[in-house]
C-alpha cells in the first residue's frame, strides 16, 4: 500500500465520489474511504526497465473474465503481441540471446503501438473515437475493462465504455461500435476479439497495420538489431520447419482468448512467408517505427559477406580456398563496407541488404570467374583435374567440378524431393477450427470432426514410424563427410588447376567472363532484370537453382543479385555500354 504513489490518480470513486486512493499489492487503485477496488492499475512509467512488462501486461489483461461471454476481453493487438511473444521465446530456444526478447523486440513493439496510436500515447484509438458519446451516456458506470492492457500510461481516464448496450447514435464514426452488441448471436459480422471487426475494416493512411507476416518482419528487425547469426532465409526456413510459431500461432493463445468471425481473417493464414515479402515488410516497418541507424555490421559480424560466403561455401561443399576469391570480390565491389551493410531506416532511401542472397551471389560470381560456366570450359577443367588426381593420389586433390556437380545434383534432388513431399503432407488446419459466425459454427466443427476421424482411420494404415521426422533446427542443411562417396567433402580440395601464378599473385587461368545481363530495367516495375532460364548455360542454371533452393527464394531474385554484383565489379564495362548506347541515341 503506497498512498504516495497513488496520488497521481485523481478521479472520483464511482461508489462514494471521494478522491482518496491507495494501491493494492497487485498495483490496483482502491478507494481508501469505501474500499472499492477499481480495475485501474498504477501506470508503469518506466516500462523499459522492467524486462518482462510485456508478458505481465498480457497476464493482467487476461485475468479479467468477461461477464457475459465465455472468453476474455482482448484486442487484436494483444493477439499479435501473443504471437510475437511466442516467436521471441522460440528464437530464445534456438539460441538467440534473451536481450532480443526482453529489450529489442519489446521496445520495437512498444514503439509500434505508440506510432500506430494504440497505446503509449495521448489519444489511443480505442478511446478517442467514442469518448464524446459515451461520456453523456452514463457517467456512473464503472466498467473499465475494455481497453487493451498495453496502454498502461494513457492520460484520459474519463473514458467509460458501456458493456451491454450502446445506443445507435449518429455521432460514432465507425459502423460497428466496439461493444458487446457485435458479439450477440444474431450479428452476422462478429469477432472474438473486441475490435476484430473494426480492425479488419480500418484503413488509415500512414499506419502500417499489423498482420501475421509482419510479426516475422518484427522478428527479423530485432535479429538484425542484435546482429544475430540468423539470416532472413534461415528465419523463414525455421518458420517452415515449424521451429518458430507462425501458421498455427493463434492456436497457442490462452484458452480464454476466443477467436472467431473476423479474427479468422486476421490470424489464420494459409501461406508460408516468402523472402521478398518479409524483406519488404521489414523495411516498411523499420521506416514506420522511425528507427535510428542500426548497429554497424563490421567484418566480424556474421552478416558480413566474408563470413556468410564462408558459411555458404561450406554449405554447398565448395573448396575453402575459394574464400580468398570471394573476399577479393567483396573488397572490389565494396559490398563489405559498414555504410553499405548497415540498415538505416531514416536514410533517404531506406534499404537493407539481402545479406544471404548477396553472399550467395558473390559465390556465383566467383564460380563464373573460375569456371566461366559456359557448358564447356568447366568440363575441360574437370578433365584436367581428374587426370591430375589420378596421377597424384597422395597429394591434395584438385577440385573437380564434374565430381562436385554429380554429388551436389544427387543431394539437392533428394533434398528437394523430400521438401516437396513434406510440403504436400503439411497440415494447415488448426485443431480448434475457426468459424465466421455462430451460424456456421456447428458446420465447421462437424467438418473438423469428420476430418479428424478420417485422418485417424487412415493413420492406422500408415506405418507407426512418423514419416516426416522433425528436423533439429540448424543453419546448415547439408552435412558433408570425408569417406562416403555419395557425400564426398570437397572442402579440402585445391584450386591449383584453375589458378596460375602471375608475378607475385595468383590469377585465374580462365580470362573470359560473360555478364548475366547487359541492361538493367530502369522502369518502375521494381524488377531489375528478368531471368529467362533457357537463355543461360546449363551449369549456370544448375548453380542458380541450387542456391535459390537453399535460400528458398525465386531463381530470378538470385539472378538479379548476381547481376547487381557484376554491375559493381565490372563498372567500367557497364559505363562503356551505357555510353555506347547513349552515343548511338545521340546519332539518331
Amino acid at each position, binding site marked *: 500500500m503506497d498512498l504516495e504513489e497513488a496520488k497521481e490518480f485523481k478521479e472520483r470513486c464511482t461508489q462514494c465520489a471521494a478522491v482518496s486512493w491507495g494501491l493494492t499489492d497487485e498495483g490496483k487503485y482502491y478507494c481508501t474511504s469505501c474500499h472499492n477496488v477499481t480495475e485501474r492499475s498504477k501506470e508503469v512509467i518506466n516500462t523499459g526497465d522492467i524486462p518482462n512488462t510485456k508478458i505481465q501486461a498480457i497476464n493482467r489483461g487476461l485475468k479479467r473474465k468477461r461477464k457475459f461471454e465465455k472468453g476474455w476481453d482482448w484486442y487484436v493487438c494483444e493477439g499479435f503481441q501473443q504471437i510475437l511473444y511466442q516467436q521471441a521465446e522460440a528464437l530464445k530456444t534456438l539460441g538467440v540471446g534473451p536481450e532480443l526478447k526482453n529489450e529489442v523486440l519489446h521496445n520495437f513493439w512498444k514503439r509500434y503501438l505508440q506510432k500506430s496510436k494504440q497505446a503509449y500515447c495521448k489519444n489511443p484509438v480505442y478511446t478517442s473515437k467514442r469518448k464524446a458519446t459515451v461520456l453523456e451516456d452514463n457517467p456512473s458506470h464503472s466498467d473499465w475493462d475494455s481497453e487493451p492492457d498495453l496502454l498502461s500510461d494513457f492520460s484520459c481516464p474519463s473514458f467509460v465504455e458501456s458493456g451491454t448496450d450502446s445506443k445507435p447514435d449518429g455521432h460514432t464514426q465507425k459502423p460497428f461500435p466496439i461493444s458487446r452488441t457485435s458479439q450477440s448471436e444474431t450479428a452476422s459480422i462478429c469477432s472474438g476479439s473486441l475490435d476484430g471487426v473494426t480492425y479488419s475494416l480500418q484503413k488509415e493512411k500512414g499506419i502500417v497495420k499489423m498482420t501475421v507476416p509482419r510479426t516475422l518482419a518484427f522478428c527479423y528487425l530485432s535479429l538484425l538489431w542484435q546482429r544475430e547469426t540468423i539470416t532472413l532465409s534461415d528465419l523463414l526456413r525455421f518458420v517452415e520447419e515449424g521451429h518458430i510459431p507462425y501458421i498455427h500461432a493463434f492456436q497457442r493463445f490462452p484458452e480464454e482468448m476466443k477467436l472467431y468471425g473476423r479474427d479468422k481473417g486476421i490470424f489464420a493464414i*494459409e501461406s508460408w512467408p516468402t523472402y521478398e515479402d518479409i524483406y519488404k515488410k521489414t523495411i516498411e516497418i523499420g521506416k514506420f517505427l522511425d528507427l535510428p541507424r542500426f548497429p554497424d555490421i563490421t567484418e566480424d559480424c556474421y552478416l558480413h559477406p566474408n563470413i556468410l560466403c564462408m558459411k555458404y561455401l561450406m554449405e554447398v561443399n565448395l573448396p575453402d580456398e575459394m574464400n580468398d576469391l570471394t573476399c577479393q570480390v567483396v573488397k572490389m565491389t565494396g559490398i563489405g563496407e559498414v555504410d553499405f551493410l548497415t540498415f538505416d531506416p531514416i536514410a533517404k532511401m531506406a534499404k537493407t541488404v539481402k545479406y544471404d542472397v548477396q553472399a550467395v551471389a558473390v559465390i556465383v560470381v566467383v564460380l563464373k570467374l573460375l569456371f566461366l560456366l559456359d557448358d564447356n570450359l568447366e568440363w575441360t577443367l574437370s578433365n584436367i583435374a581428374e587426370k591430375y588426381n589420378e596421377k597424384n593420389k597422395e597429394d591434395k586433390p584438385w577440385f573437380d567440378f564434374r565430381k562436385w556437380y554429380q554429388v551436389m545434383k544427387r543431394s539437392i534432388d533428394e533434398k528437394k524431393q523430400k521438401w516437396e513431399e513434406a510440403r504436400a503432407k503439411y497440415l494447415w488446419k488448426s485443431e480448434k*477450427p475457426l468459424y465466421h459466425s455462430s451460424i456456421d459454427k456447428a458446420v465447421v466443427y462437424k467438418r473438423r470432426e469428420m*476430418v479428424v476421424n478420417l485422418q485417424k*482411420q487412415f493413420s*492406422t*494404415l500408415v506405418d507407426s514410424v512418423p*514419416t516426416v521426422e522433425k528436423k533439429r533446427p540448424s543453419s546448415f542443411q547439408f552435412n558433408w563427410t570425408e569417406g562416403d562417396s555419395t557425400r564426398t567433402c570437397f572442402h579440402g580440395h585445391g584450386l591449383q588447376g584453375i589458378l596460375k601464378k602471375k608475378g607475385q599473385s595468383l590469377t585465374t587461368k580462365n580470362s573470359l567472363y560473360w555478364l548475366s545481363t547487359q541492361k538493367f530495367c530502369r522502369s518502375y516495375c521494381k524488377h531489375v532484370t528478368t531471368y529467362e532460364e533457357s537463355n543461360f548455360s546449363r551449369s549456370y542454371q544448375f548453380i542458380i537453382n541450387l542456391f535459390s533452393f537453399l535460400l528458398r527464394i525465386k531463381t530470378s531474385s538470385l539472378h538479379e543479385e548476381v547481376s547487381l554484383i557484376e554491375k559493381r565489379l565490372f563498372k567500367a564495362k557497364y559505363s562503356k555500354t551505357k555510353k555506347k548506347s547513349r552515343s548511338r541515341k545521340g546519332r539518331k
Partner: protein
Amino acid sequence: MSDFSEELVRSKTEDEQEESCMFSGTGMSFPWLQKHIETVATGGKKEKDFAQTTSACLSFIQEALLKHQWQQAAEYMHSYFQILEDSDSYKRQAAPEIIWKLGSEILFYHPKSNMETFNTFADRMKNIGVMNYLKISLQHALYLLHHGMFEDANRNLSHAETWRYGEKSASQEVLINLIQAYKGLLQYYTWSKNKMELSRLDKEDYAYNTAFQNMLNHSGKMSVNLCTLIQTPGVWDPFVKSYVEMLEFYGDRDEAREVLTNYAYDEKFPSNPNAHIYLYNFLKREKAPREKLISVLKILYQIVPSHKLMLEFHRLLRKSDKEDHRKLALEVLFGVLDFAGCTKNITAWKYLAKYLRQTLMENHLAWVQEEWNSRKNWWPGFHFSFFWAKTNWKEDKALACEKALVAGILLGKGCRYFRYISKQDDQVIKKKIKRIKKSVKKYSIANPGL
C-alpha cells in the same frame, strides 16, 4: 483477410453482372466478356500455399496409386483430408467425391485394410454433404457384392432406397431408381437360384410348392424395383434382360414384348444395339413372322453392320419374296465382309459366293455392280492379295476356294487370288476347283465385253 477479399471479389462480379445486363438492354450482349472478367477477377489473386500444397498432395496420391504404392497413398491421403475444410467452397464441395474415389481405391488394395475399415470409411463419406449419399451407397453395395456379402449389400441398398433429402431428392431420382433396380437385380439372383432348385424338384414334391411360392414372392418385388428404372431413358441391359426373363417365365409375353419394344424403339433412349438383339431373340422365340424379324434386324444392320446376326439377317432376306429385300441381302453380305474382323468368316464367304452366283443367274448384274463399284478400289488389296491367297490356302482350303470363286466372279480370271488357287494341284478338291473355274467363266462380271 483472404475470406474478406473473397467477399469483395464476389460483390464486384455481381456488380459487373448488373452492368452486363444493362448492356444487353441495348441489344448487345457479350457472354464471353462476362466470363473473361470473372476469370480475371479470380485469376489475379495469388494462390495460397494451402491450395498449392493440397493439389501437390493430390498428384502425389495419384502417382502412388498408379505405382500401386498403397502405403504412400494412404500417407498422403491423411493430409489430403484437409481439403474438406478448404475455404474455397467450390473446391470443398467437389472434395468428398474425389476423396471417396481415391480413398476407396486405397482401401480396396491396401494390405492393412479390411472389410471393416472399408465399411466405416464408406459410412463416413456418405454423410459428408448430402449429394454423395446415394452414389457412395451404391458403390459400397457393389464392393460388398464383390466380397460375397450378399446380405449386407442388400441391406445397404434398402437403406439407400429410403433416403430422402427435401428438394435434393428430386434431382437424385435416377440414382434412387438405379439403387432400386440393383436391389431388383439381387432379387433376380435369388429368384433364379430358386428357379434352378425348382427344376430339380419333382412337381409332386411337397417342397415344390413352397419353392414356387418363394419365387413368386421375389418376382413381385423384383418387378416393382426394376420397372421404374427401365422406363427412364438409359442403357439398362442386365436389368432389362433379367426382367424379361422373369416375365417370360410367368408367361407374361405381352408385357415382355412391350418392355423390349419400348427399350429398342423409344427415341428418348440412347441408341443401343443390344436392345434390338434382345427384341429379335425374343421375337424369334415367339416365332414371329419373318417380316417382323427383318424390320428389327434392319435397325441393327444400321447400327452394327458387322454383327454376327447379320448372316442370319441375310438368310431371312434371301428367302423373302420382295425384290428389295433380296437386293438388301447382297448389300448385307458385302457389308459384313467390309470389316477386318470378318475376313476369315467362311460362312460369309460361302454365302457371298453362292448368292453372287444366284443373283447373276437372276440377271441382277446391276445390283452386283452397284456394290462392287464402291469396293473395287480396295477389296482386291484387302481380301484378294497374293499374300492372302497364300495364307488362306495354307490355313483353310475351303475358305480359299470360296474366296477364289468370289474373286473370280468380281475380278475375272486374271486376278492373282484366283490364279494362285486355281493353279494349286490338290487331289482332294480338284473337282471343286474345276467347278469354280466353270462358274467364273460363266458369271464373271469383269470385262464382260471380252
